């Protein structure tokens, strides 16, 4: 049985793969020991979106930073919003950006 014309070999809709490349950037405070939260979020995004993301960039910083940018949009900032984001809220932002 052949693939439907709108599906790629992995069954994913071709349109999904044609979405503009979406980058996620996580800036975290290295001197605050925020590595676990950073890796947890990066892992959750990798598992959920795989190669639908163009990249996940991790930037070690300081000053109590924990910022998450999806495309051009800063979807979480510890300084602005307080605390760490729920991975689900970041996934929702990624889905919206990917128009899934």
């Amino acid at each position, binding site marked *: 049985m052949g693939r439907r014309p709108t599906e790629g070999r992995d069954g994913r809709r071709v349109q999904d793969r044609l979405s503009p490349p979406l980058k996620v950037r996580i800036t975290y405070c290295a001197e605050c020991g925020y590595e676990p939260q950073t890796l947890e979020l990066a892992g959750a995004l990798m598992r959920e979106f795989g190669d639908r993301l163009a990249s996940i960039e991790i930037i070690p910083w300081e000053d109590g930073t924990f910022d998450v940018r999806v495309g051009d949009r800063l979807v979480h900032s510890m*300084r602005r919003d307080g605390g760490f984001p729920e991975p689900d809220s970041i996934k929702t932002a990624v889905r919206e950006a990917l128009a899934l």
Partner: protein
Amino acid sequence: MGTLTRERFEQGVTYDAFKDAMTRNRERIEANEARLTLSADDLAAFRGSRPLHVMALAADWCGDVIANLPVLARIAKESGTLDLRVFERDQNADLMDQYLNQGAHKSIPVFAFFDQDWNEVGVFIERPDGVTELRARKRREVFAAHPEFGSPDAPVDQLPEDVRARLQQELQKMRDETTERANSEVVRELRAIVEGRSTWGGARQREGTAGGSKTA
């Protein structure tokens, strides 16, 4: 107010044992230890203090621990009046939970001072407010002197990598240049505790930045 028993206190490790167990930043903590200058007046005040036990909550990744624990350790060593034991933050939740910053944040270091009857006599958390204010002011000055760094309130991930690297260097330089002043503030706060003049008992309720730092 925190509670501590002798048995629990003695489960902590010495400062030297803490350093031996460090997986990173040992050079930095020892450099800060060597860099501290204690005035004769401060030293006399600590030497004249009643003997106190000091429970320190720490972790080797934390910048404020690397900055402030060696100050306390030098004072303990040179005064002979402070019995210091160090506890790893994430392995001692029962202690950490007693000293949450603003009742919510696991800020470190925590230095809790106890008399010989295990009454808490004072607490130091994270860093003195004066140090936070000093560094915030100096940080603003760095940004003002370098327009290419953009706004001090803007997320740094938007800066080009080379500019971000230069900003990091400038901030490190600023921290180095303010270390002596910061150490003086720490010594002043610790001296106030041992002399019974501390206001740090209420520090856990003080206002801070959203989300706090050193919070996990």
